[in-house]
């Protein structure tokens, strides 16, 4: 590893960082426009063409607002929580491949640059670990605020996140034994090609139930409607971020949208084949660009479903949330896991008595 490799790594990190910020700015605007359309409103339209700069305007406004620090807070944790919430949000995207590698000659050596922050051999476990870490910020923010509503929001968030994490993890096990690896790039590679030249070899085809369970679980993990009991305005004001204002509040807001983008990207990568798609026999630059376009199309389709669900469904009651998590999703995921393992095993090793 020489200086050029380090330079490549730094450029990659900056690209991922810029990509996530740009995606957030776009996402908030898209969400407001889509929900506005579904509710027969216009939505933001003043800042920039079609209101596309609305998020930037909001962010700048928050920068100039007073950052109130209430007198009952636990200062250390209170100040740390907004930073902690951003960390997993940015880190999780580092293992997602967004396209095929390209080669570049630097310092007289030809180097292969993958379109992925880093290809960890335990990529999937890394994703699960980072998504679990996200709940710490919420709990600490709620607890350290020294106020009723944030505390309730924080406790709710923990119970909800850990309930659905079990279902999420179980839904991912079949993906691993289909690919035979925890590395995200190998999971994507295992999904290339087609069955009979028509049906793409994506995990969603054999593992449709896993995909459904995973998608419900990620909506709950990102605390989006209809699972937004963590910040249910009518009961607990703003939930865990009630006592935050100014840019500290913006950090929570930013993290929520980045997480939505991350989770959609993960679902697209693990179940919809990631950057796989027809290249029509093209070569050169176009064959490099097309996979990136496919990746973003898939991600944004899933994000659109997120928004669609938000605009359609009312919020769950807490006991309904727990019932869905523990009594529906986990048993379904367990049984589906056994069933798919037996089917795959039968195909690969033959009948058990032979």
């Amino acid at each position: 590893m020489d200086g050029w490799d380090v330079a490549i790594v730094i450029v990659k990190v900056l690209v991922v960082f810029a990509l996530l910020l740009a995606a957030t700015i776009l996402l908030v605007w898209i969400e407001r426009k889509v929900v506005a359309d579904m509710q027969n409103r216009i939505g933001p339209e003043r800042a920039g063409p079609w209101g596309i700069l609305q998020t930037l305007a909001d962010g700048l406004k928050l920068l100039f607002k007073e950052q109130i620090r209430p007198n009952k807070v636990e200062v250390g944790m209170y100040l740390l929580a907004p930073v902690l919430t951003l960390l997993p949000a940015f880190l999780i995207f580092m293992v997602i491949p967004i396209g095929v590698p390209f080669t570049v000659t630097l310092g007289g050596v030809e180097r292969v640059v993958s379109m992925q922050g880093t290809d960890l051999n335990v990529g999937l476990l890394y994703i699960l670990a980072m998504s679990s870490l996200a709940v710490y910020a919420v709990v600490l923010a709620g607890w350290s605020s020294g106020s009723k509503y944030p505390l309730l929001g924080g406790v709710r968030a923990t119970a909800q996140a850990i309930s659905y994490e079990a279902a999420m993890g179980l839904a991912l096990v079949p993906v691993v034994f289909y690919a035979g690896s925890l590395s995200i790039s190998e999971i994507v590679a295992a999904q290339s090609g087609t069955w009979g030249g028509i049906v793409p070899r994506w995990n969603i085809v054999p593992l449709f139930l896993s995909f459904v369970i995973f998608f419900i679980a990620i909506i709950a993990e990102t605390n989006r409607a209809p699972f937004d009991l963590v910040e249910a305005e009518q009961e607990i004001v703003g939930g865990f971020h009630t006592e935050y204002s100014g840019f500290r509040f913006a950090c929570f807001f930013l993290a929520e949208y980045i997480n939505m983008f991350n989770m959609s990207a993960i679902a697209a990568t693990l179940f919809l084949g990631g950057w796989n798609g027809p290249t029509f026999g093209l070569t050169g630059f176009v064959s490099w660009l097309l996979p990136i376009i496919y990746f973003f199309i898939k991600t944004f389709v899933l994000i659109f479903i997120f928004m669609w669900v938000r605009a359609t469904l009312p919020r769950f009651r807490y006991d309904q949330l727990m019932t869905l998590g523990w009594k529906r999703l986990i048993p379904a995921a367990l049984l589906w896991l056994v069933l798919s393992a037996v089917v795959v095993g039968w195909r690969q090793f033959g009948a058990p008595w032979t």
Partner: protein
Amino acid sequence: MNLADYLPIAIMLLLVIVFAGASIGLGNLLGPRRPTPEKLAPYECGIVPELEPSQRFPVKFYLVAMLFVIFDIEIIFLFAWAVRFRELGWFGLAAVGIFTALVIETLGYVWKRGALDWNIPRRARYRLSHDVADEEAA
């Protein structure tokens, strides 16, 4: 394991900490600072808060956390098996099948005991199990 794989993650970690610290610090500089006693009180929709938020919350949340530990550990075992699915063959599948059956049985037991029910009427919650047995006998 190659530690160089983790370099981008470490750089990203630093970058995010710097970004968050810088933007929050900038917000502190640019924003006004006009504290009033009312503004600094914990938010309670305009009512003056009389009590500290209680440090105790329903034990149900604790129960959920304990159940989660059981299932999360199970998932970790399953991942280890899933990576070596092909090599382990039917032997591994049978072993995991027995293991999963035990977990499903645990879930069934917990379910039957009512640990997964969220809203239990207070009367039912305080009714002791031998009372229930007595009632069923009678």
